[in-house]
């Protein structure tokens, strides 16, 4: 066990898996010599060489398209998109090609690959270095979508994602890249995809979050406890596949749901979670599920802390839900 931050855990996972499996390659802008603008791939090119850790030209579509071709030929590519905001030039490759390749070929071909992207706000990045595009990927059948909140999960889930037979979009909450620290096992053990974790058991209201917002949800729950409100906090970790059983079991018990995410509210993943719970827990719900989210605007610069659903706003929602 070593105490690592989330960035180091990602680096550790990549290094571990590249040592174990010669099929794993890393490609993207600035990932090689420089080791990535966040240094997530630092040291990998020195260890694994220029052919396995590749600095690509500036073209996200090419990065993902080439990764798909590599996967067809038997490699396990882990392309990096420098910021999730720059995934849009690769959307045709991700949504039209990567997601559909297995299905459309009648299962003849598959393209297991992991698209890593730092995502989310809180680093003063304004419009284009802050977005949370998970809903686009979740809406696209064929993709898995994973978001770790802690270093341990970052390592274990990234190992699992690379070994998974399906393409995975791996969203890394860059706001807590350095702030989230914790013990990370040294081995190469993967954590299963599709399992949420109840990080705080509680009885009165279920608070669901992922990524950087899980930390805010957890803080809000602690503050709520001080006020005598007993929250159950769930870190989803995997948005697709979704661990609906854990969610439904929790809401069936608490009867109340608060969903937290950074992305704009309208058509965000929160809407899906609310729809799913009202479909399955209709008779158990004692209050409307509440979404605490980013607003329906582009991501701002100066007022980003007002925009982000941080602990105080979550706490406010928890109180309102419990009082309903």
């Amino acid at each position: 066990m070593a105490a690592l931050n989330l960035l180091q855990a990602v680096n550790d996972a990549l290094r571990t898996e590249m040592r174990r499996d010669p099929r794993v390659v890393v490609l993207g802008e600035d990932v090689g010599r420089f080791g990535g603008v966040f240094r997530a791939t630092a040291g990998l090119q020195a260890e694994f060489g220029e052919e396995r850790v590749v600095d690509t030209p500036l073209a996200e579509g090419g990065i993902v398209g080439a990764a798909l071709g590599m996967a067809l030929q038997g490699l396990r590519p882990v392309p990096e998109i420098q910021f999730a905001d720059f995934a849009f030039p690769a959307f045709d490759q991700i949504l039209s090609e990567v997601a559909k390749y297995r299905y459309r070929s009648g299962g003849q071909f598959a393209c297991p690959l992991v698209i890593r992207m730092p995502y989310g706000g809180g680093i003063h990045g304004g419009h284009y270095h802050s977005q949370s595009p998970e809903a686009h990927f979740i809406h696209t059948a064929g993709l898995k979508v994973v978001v770790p909140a802690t270093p341990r999960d970052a390592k274990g889930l990234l190992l699992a994602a690379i070994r998974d037979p399906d393409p995975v979009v791996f969203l890394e909450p860059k706001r807590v890249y350095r702030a989230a620290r914790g013990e990370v096992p040294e081995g190469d053990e993967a954590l299963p995809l599709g399992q949420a974790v109840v990080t705080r058991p509680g009885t009165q209201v279920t608070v669901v979050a992922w990524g950087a917002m899980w930390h805010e949800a957890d803080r809000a729950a602690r503050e709520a406890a001080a006020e005598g409100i007993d929250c159950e906090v769930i870190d989803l970790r995997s948005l697709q596949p979704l661990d609906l059983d854990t969610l439904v079991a929790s809401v069936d018990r608490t009867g109340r749901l608060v969903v937290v995410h950074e992305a704009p509210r309208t058509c965000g993943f929160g809407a899906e979670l609310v729809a799913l719970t009202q479909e399955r827990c209709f008779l158990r719900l004692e209050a409307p599920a509440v979404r605490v989210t980013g607003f329906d605007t582009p991501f701002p610069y100066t007022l980003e802390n007002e925009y982000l659903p941080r602990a105080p706003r979550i706490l406010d929602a928890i109180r309102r839900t419990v009082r309903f």
Partner: protein
Amino acid sequence: MRAEREAARVERVGAPASRESAPGTGAGDPFPLERVVDEDGLVADESRVLLAGEELLRLHRAMVLDRALDERMITLQRQGRIGFYVGAIGEEAAVLGAAAAMAPTDWIFPCYREHGAALLRGMPLAAFLCDLLGNAAAPGKGRQMPCHEAWRPARYASVSSPIGTQISHAVGAAWAARIQGEEMVPLVYFGDGATSSGEFHVGLNFAAVRHLPVIFACRNNGWAISLPTDRQTAAATVAQKAVAYGMLGVRVDGNDVVAVHAATRRARARAAAGGGPTLLDLVTYRMEGHSTSDDPRAYRAAAVVEPWRRRDPIERLRRLLLRRGLLDDAGVERVRAEVAAEIQVALAEAEARPPRPPLESLFEDVYAEPLRQQREQLAELAGAVAADPRVADPRHADA
């Protein structure tokens, strides 16, 4: 004047080269049209014919099959027996000449007119026809439109509709093979329209900068649906687009299967030897509508097609074969008859299969294993069908 000097400079690499023009002399023209067999089936330089007689006959048969298949399927579409078709009539030399020059383990990344190459590679005709029918025996399980085949045993990748996306796939496959130490040179096809896509640019640039062994084969057939190539790009040739990448670009008479084959084989040898990628500009012509959904009379005068009739690639090869005594008129007829019979048999076989894949096939292969949603939704659909059979009634389609 300086400005004029510069204009001249562009002219040098970009002089409007007529697509109908005779091959360039090479002098002054940086991208002369390479040709081996002329329209009368005559060969000026025998040393440039790299195909043995047997191989020429094999290619001839493949081209005749491709043509006959296209004609037959267009008829089938009109009869409502298949839903859609997109063929390669007039472009058989470009498709098959390139494919025949590759090694059997080289990946082929098709656009959507290259089923002739899939068959040449060994995809069974009946399997291809099942894909057209989208029936229960279709290798693609009836999930894509006709002519969107894939055939893994021959490393023939999955056809996709979005234009140009396959280009970077080929680049990645070449890259992977180099990492694995495998000699593999992918061939990727696309049209002149695709050269305008970002995908083209991004893919060729990656290949050039990594010096990867890839053959980029542009079926430059003069049209992108209704748009003629000179409204697609102001460049006089597609070949010169290679200059942007520091890549080799070669312009070839795409209706001369011998020239296409020779240029592709050369490019392959060069790539395999570490010489990097090549852009092949295969100048040919789309003789028919874009697809069975299209009616070219709305945008193309019949007269502009006329000159291309005598450049028919199959006729040209036939003339060569007749001249060389490799085939006589009876032989030509025999090939035609064989091919027609082959189609007939395969069609009968394909049409005998259950016309619709089972309901559960809808939910397979989205992921390696269906997730909760797919399992639940299959149950939901099955329940709805049980409650009301019209849920699965294809006739209940129109509003």
